[in-house]
């Protein structure tokens, strides 16, 4: 098991998958922070005064994290932040589904109304969380821009 987790090629593939997903997910939010702010509001979890601040900062965190994971700079911090973000996303999406709030997650595009989509995204997030955990535990250090 340890050997599989530490496999260089597997780790690189997972880095690409997680990194590209984070970059793609951040794109629409960076381009249209207003729509992303609306998506955050839909979750009914965050005080109104914090919504825009999160909508302004979070997409860039996602994007830089994605780049850091792919290219291997600030790698450890990026992997930890990616795991924390996945936990938060899964909690937010799960709580919205449990509370019966009809929403699209706002993960990859502007907000829309669809509970089915929320379920699909929750499963997708769970898979992505598993991949992010692999990065957390892998000791592979190949193909990095920086040593840390």
């Amino acid at each position: 098991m340890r050997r599989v987790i530490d496999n260089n090629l597997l780790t690189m593939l997972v880095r690409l998958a997680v990194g590209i997903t984070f970059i793609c997910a951040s794109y629409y939010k960076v381009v249209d922070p207003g729509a992303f702010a609306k998506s955050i509001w839909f979750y009914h979890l965050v005080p109104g005064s914090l919504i825009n601040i999160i909508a302004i900062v979070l997409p860039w965190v996602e994007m830089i994290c994605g780049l850091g994971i792919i290219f291997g700079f600030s790698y450890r911090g990026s992997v930890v932040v990616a795991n924390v973000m996945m936990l938060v996303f899964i909690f937010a999406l799960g709580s919205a589904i449990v509370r019966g709030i009809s929403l699209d997650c706002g993960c990859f595009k502007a907000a829309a109304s669809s509970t089915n989509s929320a379920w699909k995204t929750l499963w997708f997030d769970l898979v992505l969380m598993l991949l992010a955990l692999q990065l957390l535990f892998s000791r592979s250090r190949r193909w990095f821009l920086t040593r840390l």
Partner: protein
Amino acid sequence: MRNWDSSTIFKQILVLVLVSAALGFGRAYLVPGGIEAVGKWRSLSGGDGPIIPPAADEGDPPFIDINVAQMEHSTGRTIFIDAREPDEFECATIPGSINIPFEQLPEDDLEGYLNDALNGTPKDVSIVIFCSGEECDLSLHLARNMQFLGYTRVMIFFGGSREWVKFGLEVERRRNCDE
């Protein structure tokens, strides 16, 4: 996780967040289309849950409150139907609503009438039906009819246009009714 010392990770996370904040606020304030740091989001504690009329029965379409109504409206995909008479509809209604007056529904071929009124919209599209407010049950009756005809995602906003206005939300006026 071996050799992952916590101070290095903390520093990297700090730099990551600071750089992100700089880029985000730079984008927000320097590039057109940005948003302000503090938005005008209505407090979600403002609503007291959906208004459910005494006439409601088990099996009726779900009743939604102002928060959910606003959320559905913001999606741009949910159809809003004003069940009041055209003169009330024209005075002030929820923006983008379609007027289907319950009192004017035909007795024959209601399904075809609704299909035409909704431009052949599929029956699984989200629909919010409303009228004036608590004293008006046109929305309830229209919703029951639509549910019976197979529309699967009908919701009733029983607070209606009055609650919409009470919360300071934008209304659409087709004619001036103030004089």
